[in-house]
């Protein structure tokens, strides 16, 4: 898991750099979300089809999207740089929450045709305000669709804090639709993995939807066009950085002696190579 998190961090950092250099047009950082994404994606395994929002870069890479395929749409080359069907990782959807209904409809369609109907829908806290999210939760509930909703709540809908977006948790809201749910923190990928594995088992065994709300921290702005310093206090940004799940997990595994300097060196070399290939592709 740590390797996936480090790779995602490295690609994310490089894409941010490339955007600063003008080599790509826009980047939406997933820094701070890595434990939530890697833990959940590994927990559900390769079989389900993933309907992402647009910040699930760690999930994408884990599913086999190549870094240049991931970055291509942010460099104006395409609307989707990878093969969605083969990877069962469907295109990013930029209109908030639109993919939630697609995910439920896809699951129903797959079930009607006697095929694998397990679907994972990723969504952010801001997008849960969209009507489509409420409609999708209700539809999934009444159709008993095999859909696992994973809401990464990073506390901010661009500049609107979660406290001003909702007076309840997303997990509570799911229960209002008759969907079982759980709310967890997203710093420890092992904890996320354990909870999402149970959630996936629920979806499979009960043939019913489930929602996992994962509280994460957004280390950077919503996008590279967003200056979060304008609306977020320096203390809050510093607090988000201090809870960085990647450095925390790396330190923990090092402390346990599960990874050593040689391992970090090898993974570091792999990431450097991936970053260099990105530079060559987009800034070459």
């Amino acid at each position, binding site marked *: 898991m740590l390797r996936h998190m480090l790779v995602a961090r490295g690609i994310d950092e490089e894409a941010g750099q490339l955007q600063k250099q003008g080599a790509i047009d826009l980047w939406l950082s997933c820094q701070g979300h890595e434990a939530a994404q890697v833990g959940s994606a590994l927990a559900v395994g390769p079989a389900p089809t993933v309907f992402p929002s647009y910040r699930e870069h760690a999930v994408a890479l884990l599913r086999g999207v190549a870094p240049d395929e991931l970055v291509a749409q942010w460099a104006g080359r*395409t*609307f*989707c740089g990878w*093969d*969605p*069907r083969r990877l069962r990782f*469907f*295109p990013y*959807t930029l*209109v908030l929450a*639109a993919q*939630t*209904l*697609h*995910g*439920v*409809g*896809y*699951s*129903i*369609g*797959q079930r*009607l*045709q006697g*095929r694998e109907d397990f679907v994972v829908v990723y969504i952010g806290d801001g997008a849960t305000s969209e*009507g*489509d999210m409420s*409609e*999708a939760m*209700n*539809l999934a509930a*009444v159709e008993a669709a095999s859909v696992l909703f994973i809401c990464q709540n990073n506390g901010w809908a661009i500049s609107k804090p979660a406290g001003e977006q909702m007076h309840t948790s997303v997990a509570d809201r799911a229960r209002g639709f008759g969907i079982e749910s759980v709310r967890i923190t997203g710093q420890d990928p092992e904890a996320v993995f354990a909870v999402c594995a149970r959630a996936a088992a629920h979806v499979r065994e009960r043939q019913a939807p489930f929602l996992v709300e994962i509280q994460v921290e957004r280390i950077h702005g919503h996008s590279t066009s967003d200056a979060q310093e304008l609306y977020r206090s320096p203390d809050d940004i510093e607090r988000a950085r201090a809870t960085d799940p990647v450095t925390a997990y790396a330190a923990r595994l090092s402390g346990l002696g599960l990874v050593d300097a040689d391992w970090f060196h090898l993974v570091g070399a792999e990431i450097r190579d991936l970053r260099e290939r990105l530079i060559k592709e987009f800034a070459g």
Partner: protein
Amino acid sequence: MSASRSTSLAVSINATLADLMEQRPEMLLLGEDVGRLGGVFRVTRGLRDRFGADRVRDSLLAESTIVGQAVGMAMSGLVPVCEIQFDGFTYPAVNQLVTQASRIGDRWNGQVRPSLVVRIPTGGGIRGVEHHSESNEALFARVPGISVACPSTGEDADQILRYAVTIGSPVVVYEPIRLYWRRNTPARDPQPARSATAARIVRRGADLTIVTYGAVTNEVLEAAGALATEVDAEVVDLRWVAPLDLETILESVARTGRLLIVHEGSRDVGIGAEIAASVAERGFDLLRGPVRRLAPERRPYPPADFEKDYLIGVEQITAEILGMTK
């Protein structure tokens, strides 16, 4: 004047849907009350009993849910034919149609080609309450990636629906409510359209071309028939407003030299404006006089007591034809 008693539009669409469902196991129907009730206009009557509740699905009362899940179903290989209950209730589904259904093919680099049909009962003259008599086809005609059909006979609806479920991109089909169960309609030239996407010349004439579509096609034919001894009008039923069959229009205008466009949707920035502009660009020298449009002014559809003032009637069409040809 002659009239034909044919199978009604509703009966014809029901038979076409049943036949398509029989032939294509991947097709399903999805909409509010389309199953147990057979739709508020009974267009899907009996289909749930015949094909089962899995394939004739009573949807939630949420239009975005209908189209949004249909997009997902299309991604799974199904061919959903959705029904929106009334034209005026289409708006909650506009986001899913415009930003999603129309763009999925491009977003997937052609790997998914969603055949997805949305049937929408449309138009007035039925004493409908607010929102139940509208004509918003021009809204979708502007959207690249969405085809928009406006059949005015069962025969045309049959050809259009059979084509729509095969093309791998979304089609919105507007079905005139006031024609669903009407059986006496003015006779039409029997020659079929050149193709499933072509307009159809429903009356041959030499003095004036009238381009129209939807329910008002019948009022145009009545007006043309009433004036037959004075003016020999040609009537083109577009059948599709996006993409437009400009070739048929231009060929007709080349024969007659005059063009009148009649539609029930409001005039400003409407389908008629697009036709007038296109004919001006490509056929200006064919014209012997200015292109004219006859369509309701830009205002909300009124309460039922006032709809006769809003709709384009036979008298107005007759007056316009005479004004253009005298």
